């Protein structure tokens, strides 16, 4: 897959759930789902429970259910802190 990648970190209260370079991510923000690509403007939002999706540089797709949380986008570093992440389902393209 093409497109610039950026670093995504998914942290739960207990551990770092995912850390790596992704091309795109969709995160359940409080005011609606947020699609995040590289070079996003700095942003902080609260997140509601919902579906978390991201695709890494190799084209692997990940879908999870995430709990309440926080999203911070700062430069090309995106950090998503959430209560818990459930139901890992990886779709290999």
């Amino acid at each position: 897959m093409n497109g610039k990648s950026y670093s995504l970190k998914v942290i739960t209260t207990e551990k770092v759930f995912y850390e790596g370079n992704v091309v795109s991510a969709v995160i359940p923000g409080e005011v609606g789902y947020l699609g995040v690509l590289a070079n996003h403007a700095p942003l902080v939002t609260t997140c509601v429970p919902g579906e978390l999706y991201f695709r890494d540089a190799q084209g692997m797709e990940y879908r999870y259910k995430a709990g309440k949380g926080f999203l911070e986008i700062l430069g090309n570093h995106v950090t998503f802190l959430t209560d818990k992440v459930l139901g890992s389902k990886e779709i290999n393209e």
Partner: protein
Amino acid sequence: MASLRQIRRRIRSVENTKKITRAMEMVAASKLRRFEDLLTKARESAYFLERLLKNLLKDVADYKHPLFEAKGGAGKIVLVVVTSDTGLCGTYNSNLLHAANAFLKEKADRQAEGQCLQDKAAEGGRSKQGQVEIITVGKTGLNYFRRIGQRTGLAFNEIRLSNFEATVQEITEHLTQGFLGCRSGQAAGGGLTESAQAIGQYRSGQAAGGGLTESARAGGSQFDQVYLLYTQYVSKSNYKPRVEKFLNLEKTADEAGERVGYILEPSAERIFDELLPRFLLTKVRTVLLEAFLSEQLSRMVAMRQATDNAVEMIEDLTLLRNKLRQASITKELIEVVSGAKAAKK
């Protein structure tokens, strides 16, 4: 001089002690590893929240949140002392309690100064002065403060891994709600939502006329400041008692960085309402983990020392035993030889 038999018995008893201390050392070491693991993972979110909060505060410097509000100065102070449940951990508890006493003394001194001024100004507010309430975590602290007759509030004992998260929530809620002065009657377990509710109540109370602070103070459930006293874990060879201010939150005057210019969704208020309780919860969690880690570390070191001492003692006693045995053999030989000589004559 002790008899051979007595020395043998002592060697055996020291050996048993050695076995016990060695076992305790190993138990502490395994617990240590588990807590260490938890702490490294918990620190990840703690660092994130701390950094985020700092950045946000730079962005919205003028924003006022109830948790940041400094209360009227010399009101009730709460000190949370994190000690261990069990003993045999070297100087861990005594160092902590020493620090606690220093803290109490310092506050009492400041109180005394304040009192003089207060007396001149007004006589009414004096009863609220100089109260430090102590909340203990761990039995050692509780027993100690009871013995010296210090007022203690809630006590949290026997925290294990199974009830760790629940206790962390309970402590955080108690402190947050006590600070805000809105105690909801609900049972523990609501966690973040409950703290958020407390913030909401506080706000609505203030909007209704700002009298809530006064009424809550009259109710007596209000703390003006909350401090945590725990053993900070820096590294395996560096862990020491530390007093940290927990509430009210203080803005760190970090001039170095520039504003980030975040887009805030949906609003600064919502974000702070979500972020701060979570931040406090994480803070309590890391503080407790650090304390437990230090406790196990301290116990491990103490037990290793005890084992080493036992080994040394066994060596000394063995030497003595051998000397005594040799002496008795020599004595018997002399007796046999001299007996034989006498028989020949």
